[in-house]
């Protein structure tokens, strides 16, 4: 097979290998060990195949690559149109990177209905990759909705505590919000006869869409609400802590690591891509919400007695940075936003895995139940420290680069934004280190903690790649940024006039 | 000659009586007869229109309607008997196992 052939096929492969794996699992007899091994093989294979993308990506080009476009349904005019640019490419790789880790971390902790669990996980992976790769709005919506069910089922079937409540809340929140997006997509289709992102983009920018001017504010809002709930942006965030706390570890990892990025990715791709004018107009209040989210998330995290809730609120804070970066409309800000998405995926994913490991031993997330864990679990403590530092934004680790870029973008846009956001970083160092101190230092207050076993082989195998990635991203961010930068540059083209205005302030 | 509107008015009144009977009466048989009344109101207007358009078809329709009504009556009475067997009442207010 020639490279050109492979290039046009690669996205289909990456997207559907997990689904094929899921079908294979359906047919597989219920021997838990085999099922786990098969799931691991499939996810590793997907990861390996997805590495083709960064390997053969033309770094200097800003546009879409690995494009494939086929007519799927003639009426309405729906194409199977997939492609990636520097932004979505890394999100795809992030997804394929995290899924095998999820399989590893669930190796022991999921012990009933194992088959269903891994089927759901694989279906979820396909849907997530599909969201990032599809350029046909219809296809996008299709995958977008398709992520809902496996995720809701993962929470509802394998979670703990008020899992059903959390699952239903998650489902309804995102479902209702995405209805607005569907309405907007249908409107665009009714006016242009196309679902294709690039076609729509050029039609809109050339003013060829009848009635667009009066509808644009509503369309922007419709897309924005769907994405904002997913991010989740303050004040749409209330489903997130519930979903995280009750979800199984792998569910939390996928949720924080990838699902939330669907929202920010959607804002970047569609809100900015299709409605630049509206995005500029609405930026002030969106940035305000993002700033509120950064500070609010951090403050709530500070007082959380529950470890998982703390991480969940820290996600809200971090995702606030992403939104801030996106709506700063500066090159560095957007670069940073994308980088934060990736870094947050890795480090928060790892944090949730760490919390899950503890839960499996002690069946609690309450911070006060721990303390002094550094003695019985030294390796665990080391990993935890590493990830906490990465997440808090220590230089030379992954969290630093993104947040630094976002802050400089925010300062460029307006000094006040930067100042407020910077306090968020201080808070985050505070709550994370405090969490660490309470959990690992001091005396052991609970006798049960005395003899906790340290990391097992599978757990180490799941954490090691994440830690390595966190380090690599911090040391050599350019590996990522030099692909992200051209893509961001293209995304910002419609804003070039806006940019000069903002810079002139 | 009696003008068309008189027939139509009468048929309308018959139909309305049927509706009222259907809504107000409590005995199943009476309700059923109210439906028959409605159908007869319709028949009257069919005949009247047939005369108006000089179209025989309207009168033929009446036969069809009567046949269908007879079939309906047969089935309906059978159902009513079935209900009476299980409930021993013909009052609709007491046939209330299912919430309405």
């Amino acid at each position: 097979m020639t490279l050109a052939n492979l290039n046009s096929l690669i996205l289909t492969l990456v997207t559907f290998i997990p689904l094929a794996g899921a079908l294979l699992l359906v047919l597989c007899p219920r021997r838990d060990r085999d099922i786990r091994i098969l799931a691991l093989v499939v996810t590793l294979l997907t990861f390996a195949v997805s590495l083709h993308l960064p390997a053969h990506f033309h770094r200097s080009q800003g546009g879409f690559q690995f494009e494939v476009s086929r007519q799927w349904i003639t009426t309405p005019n729906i194409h199977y149109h997939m492609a990636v640019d520097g932004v979505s490419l890394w999100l795809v790789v992030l997804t394929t990177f995290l899924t095998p880790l999820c399989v590893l971390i669930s190796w022991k902790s999921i012990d009933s209905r194992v088959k269903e669990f891994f089927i759901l996980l694989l279906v979820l992976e396909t849907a997530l990759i599909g969201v990032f790769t599809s350029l046909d709005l219809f296809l996008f919506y299709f995958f977008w909705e398709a992520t809902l069910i496996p995720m809701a089922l993962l929470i509802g079937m394998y979670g703990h505590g008020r899992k059903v409540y959390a699952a239903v809340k998650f489902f309804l929140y995102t479902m209702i919000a995405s209805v607005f997006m569907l309405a907007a997509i249908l409107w665009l289709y009714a006016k242009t006869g196309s679902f294709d992102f690039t076609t729509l983009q050029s039609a809109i920018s050339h003013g060829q869409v009848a009635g667009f001017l009066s509808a644009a504010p509503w369309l922007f809002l419709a897309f924005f609400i769907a994405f904002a709930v997913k991010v989740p942006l303050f004040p749409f965030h209330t489903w997130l802590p519930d979903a995280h706390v009750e979800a199984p570890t792998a569910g939390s990892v996928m949720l924080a690591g990838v699902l939330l990025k669907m929202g920010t990715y959607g804002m970047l791709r569609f809100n900015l891509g299709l409605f630049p004018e509206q995005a500029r107009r609405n930026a002030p209040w969106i940035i305000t919400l993002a700033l509120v989210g950064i500070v609010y998330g951090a403050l709530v995290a500070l007082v959380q007695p529950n470890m998982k809730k703390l991480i969940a609120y820290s996600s809200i804070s971090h995702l606030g940075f992403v939104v801030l970066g996106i709506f700063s409309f500066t090159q560095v800000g957007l670069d940073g936003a994308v980088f934060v998405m990736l870094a947050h995926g890795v480090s928060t994913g790892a944090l949730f895995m760490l919390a899950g490991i503890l839960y499996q031993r002690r069946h609690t997330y309450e911070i006060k139940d721990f303390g002094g864990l550094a003695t019985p679990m030294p390796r665990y403590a080391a990993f935890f420290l590493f990830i906490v530092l990465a997440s808090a934004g220590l230089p030379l680790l992954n969290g630093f680069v993104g947040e630094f870029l976002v802050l400089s973008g925010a300062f460029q846009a307006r000094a006040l934004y930067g100042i407020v956001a910077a306090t968020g970083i201080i808070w985050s160092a505070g709550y994370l280190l405090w969490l660490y101190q309470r959990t690992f230092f001091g005396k052991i207050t609970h006798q049960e903690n005395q003899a906790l076993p340290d990391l097992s082989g599978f757990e180490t195998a799941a954490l090691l790649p994440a830690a390595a990635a966190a380090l690599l991203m911090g040391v050599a961010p350019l590996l990522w940024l030099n692909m992200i930068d051209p893509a961001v540059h293209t995304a910002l083209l419609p804003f070039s006039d806006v940019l000069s205005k903002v810079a002139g302030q | 000659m009696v003008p068309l509107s008189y027939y139509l008015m009468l048929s309308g009144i018959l139909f309305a009586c049927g509706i009222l009977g259907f809504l107000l009466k409590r005995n199943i048989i009476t309700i059923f007869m109210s439906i028959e009344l409605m159908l007869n109101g319709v028949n009257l207007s069919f005949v009247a229109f047939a005369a108006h358009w000089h179209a025989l078809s309207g009168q033929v329709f009446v036969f069809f309607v009567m046949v269908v009504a007879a079939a309906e009556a047969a089935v309906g009475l059978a159902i009513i008997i079935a209900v009476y067997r299980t409930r021993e009442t013909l009052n609709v207010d007491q046939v209330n196992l299912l919430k309405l």
Partner: protein
Amino acid sequence: MTQTIPQVADYIRILPELVLAFFGLVVMVLDPLLDDEGSRKTLGGIALLGALCGLGASLWMAQSPGLAFWNMVRVDSFSVFFHVLITAIVAVVILTSYEYMAVQRIRAGEYYGLILFGAVGMTLMSSAVELVLIFIALEISSISSYVLAGFRRREASSSESSLKYFLLGSFATAFFLYGVALMFGATGSTNITAISQALQAKGVPRLAYVAVALMFVGLGFKVASAPFHVWTPDVYEGAPAPIVALMSTGSKAAAFAVLLRVMFEINTPGRFWLIWVSAALSMTLGNLSALVQDNVKRLLAYSSIAHAGYLLVAFAAQPGPGISAAMFYTASYAAMNVGAFAVVSHFAGAEERYVTLADYAGLGRRSPLLAATLTIFLLSLIGIPITGGFFAKFYVFSAALKSGLVWLTLIGLLNSAIGAYYYLRIIVMMYMREPKGEITVRRIPASLGVALALSVLATLYLGVLPGRVLDFALRSATQLMQPHRAAITPAPTPPVGTM
């Protein structure tokens, strides 16, 4: 030049009806000769064969489109579509009933006969182009379903359901018939094409508006759209589950076919607001009432009201996209709803004991296969991608938006989000709650397995490759909108306007 004797082609054009009626008669004749067990097995087989032959006959009929029996019946893509759909539904329902009747210990002879006779009425409704024939077909299907609804004779709830269906159904038919009479008065004809021409040529008399409204009331009852929906939950709760599957898909599809013909082929005056209001009401009332139901059959009944509402949205849209969207919707709704009721009727057990939501707790553990199939149907009812329900909603709402119905679309989309909640409740029950009490789920027998497999396949097929069905529907829509192209022999009624 009026032909006086029916030709062979005429008979081919009603061949499915003839075949179905023939098999219905065979079933009735054989019934007294067999014992209970035999009647269930043999007659079920014969009825299934009849439905399949009907399906074959429908496909054969498709080869000779045209008018038959003095412009009473028209075979076009539209009627072929509904013939195939209805006979397929009937076949699946018979497959479902096979086990159900044995579990309920009901003597099955007349049951299968009545299903086939009902099918005659339903199929005829889709091809009749003469209002009085439509009325007769409507009655054939209705009378069969009245009896079928009360077939669990020992149960008081079943005969009560039958009574309510009968009374309200006849009440509604009286309205429809009155509408027909007034339309006859307004135009001098009951032939749909002739009516359409008369209304175009001479303007629309006020009487025609009243006639349309009355016909809409009658048909609104049949399709269970608000505000004529009150009978639905009661009847669905009491009637045997497979029959509910038939009523909610087959009868409904046929009634929608009539509504499509009446509304679009006549190009009915003043229909827009009637439909708009009814659609908005059906969606909202159906979904809101379904939220609080604890009986799965009632819940699905309210859901079917809501779906009638979504379907009516298509009627408010422009004819081209509207008709095809409505046709697609009936097909995919049939696939998922027949499937859902097949699961319900299998799970219900003897005397339909297990029909509440709480009974479904832990079904995912007890019978993963049954739970998984039901989940697929419920997801399709919600309108999740890769199921037929998704494209059905999608086509309907994009047709509505194309016609500028922004508000109705928004109401519909919000409703479908609300609707997600109660379908989700069932899924949550099945997978996320622990099983309570001792409910033995029987093994899935082969007949039901086939029925479920067919429904799942149809649901997924429509969800992944909707193109072919939609193209067919679009072609039918074009034919439906240009009825005057077909050569029409002069109406058998004497020329009008001699007064």
